[in-house]
């Protein structure tokens, strides 16, 4: 990974998904002056929902709009992890030998719809016949997971709130983040219920955003960057719909994917300096700690309670603010995580947010309630 860019997440009134993607690309090229558009052999775009902008096949338009001429430009969709899938496709493009340099990105425009309209669209991430049709939303599926997790492991609403508090604190210092507001556990507990036990401040915000990263073959990376970042693990897995699963206190697709990523990279979770994990809902971050092997099943609540995932803790998680507070413009979130890795490892973040000596990082992107997962391991050469 030789460069990255990110359009600030938020309510970007008057800006289309395409314009936001161009904003992310602008920053990507600014961060890598020796890179030109002609170097880019293919473009992958994570973009989940056609209904927000009434636009299908978004990738060619997003590419040509930035002046890429006739290159392969492909949209990748795995709902909330579309960006993670976009990154994975870029890695596969490299590994296949077909391309020596690609851009993987993501973009989503969401705030042009009302909240009920947006929830209707986002609900397409769940099963039509057996989930949506009978009244379920993504929030409600995760609320059920939270209740089951509490019943099995004792994870309380206070534990969930602590995730939100930590991620808002990290977002407060991040100029790309949407919810740059410090909050308390009490603020979370007092916020209105969306789907019990999940409250407004347990949920990531509907927002607009875009991000992009440039990948090239390792042997030519030094031509473009003095501080290239190696992607040493990459994996992807899927699972059945939430309703059909017997286990709802963990997501097997995460465990399957991350096992492959650790094996490919030859590392263990203890080696990681920081991680960006899928936290569309606070319960997701607790479950991710467990599924990613940062702790044993049921101990996720202890990690957050003991501040071990804060910056300066045992392993900093969601230094960007996560989907929870940086924001969750669906298709962008996965490559947005890689952008955070890039900025941390190339020392582009403020000192308060900088992870000390960041050498190894993990990104974990999840689509639906544990339906699609991608994990990537990044290693700094410096």
């Amino acid at each position: 990974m030789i460069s990255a860019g990110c359009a600030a997440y938020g309510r970007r009134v008057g800006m289309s998904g395409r314009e936001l993607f161009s904003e992310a690309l602008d920053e990507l090229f600014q961060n890598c002056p020796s890179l030109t558009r002609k170097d880019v052999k293919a473009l992958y775009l994570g973009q989940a929902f056609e209904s927000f902008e009434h636009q299908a096949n978004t990738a060619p338009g997003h590419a040509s709009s930035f002046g890429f001429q006739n290159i392969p430009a492909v949209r990748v969709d795995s709902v909330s992890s579309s960006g993670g899938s976009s990154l994975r496709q870029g890695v596969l493009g490299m590994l296949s030998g077909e391309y020596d340099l690609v851009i993987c990105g993501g973009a989503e425009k969401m705030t042009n719809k009302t909240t009920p309209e947006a929830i209707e669209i986002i609900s397409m991430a769940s099963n039509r016949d057996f989930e949506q049709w009978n009244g379920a939303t993504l929030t409600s599926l995760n609320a059920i997971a939270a209740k089951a997790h509490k019943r099995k492991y004792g994870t309380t609403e206070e534990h969930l709130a602590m995730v939100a508090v930590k991620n808002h604190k990290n977002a407060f210092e991040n100029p790309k983040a949407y919810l740059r507001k410090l909050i308390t556990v009490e603020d979370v507990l007092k916020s209105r219920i969306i789907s019990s036990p999940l409250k407004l401040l347990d949920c990531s915000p509907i927002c607009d955003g875009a991000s992009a990263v440039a990948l090239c073959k390792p042997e030519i990376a030094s031509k473009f960057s003095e501080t290239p970042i190696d992607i040493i693990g990459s994996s992807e897995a899927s699972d059945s719909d939430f309703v059909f699963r017997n286990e709802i206190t963990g997501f097997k697709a995460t465990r399957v994917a991350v096992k492959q990523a650790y094996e490919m990279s030859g590392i263990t979770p203890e080696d990681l300096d920081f991680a960006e994990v899928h936290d569309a809902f606070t319960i997701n971050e607790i479950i991710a700690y467990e599924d990613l092997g940062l702790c044993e099943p049921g101990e996720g609540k202890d990690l957050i309670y003991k501040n071990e995932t804060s910056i300066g803790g045992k392993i900093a998680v969601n230094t960007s603010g996560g989907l929870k507070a940086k924001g969750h413009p669906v298709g962008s979130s996965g490559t947005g995580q890689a952008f955070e890795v890039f900025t941390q490892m190339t020392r582009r973040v403020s000192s308060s947010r900088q992870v000390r000596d960041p050498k190894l990082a993990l990104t974990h992107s999840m689509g639906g309630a544990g339906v699609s997962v991608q994990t990537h391991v990044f290693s700094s050469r410096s």
Partner: protein
Amino acid sequence: MHCCIVCQSLSVQRVELSGKGEVLESTEMLSKSGEFPIEVPYHLALVKLDEGPNLLGILEEPTAVKVKVVFKKLRDGERARIFFVADR
């Protein structure tokens, strides 16, 4: 599902179930999809049927544990939706 969710066998057939089951978890929803034709608040439950599979649907009595399925057509021309009522 076109396969067994336990062993993935494709040798499956349609069978009539009792419609009875137990609530595993439920959630009170105060936010919903715009198209869903019931107003909030409502309770959504994950129910394990006596025969094994899970279903999601609206729990009409929030404190019920033993429940049975009721199919309701909310609009003409649409497929039925799943509700759970207490199985007394």
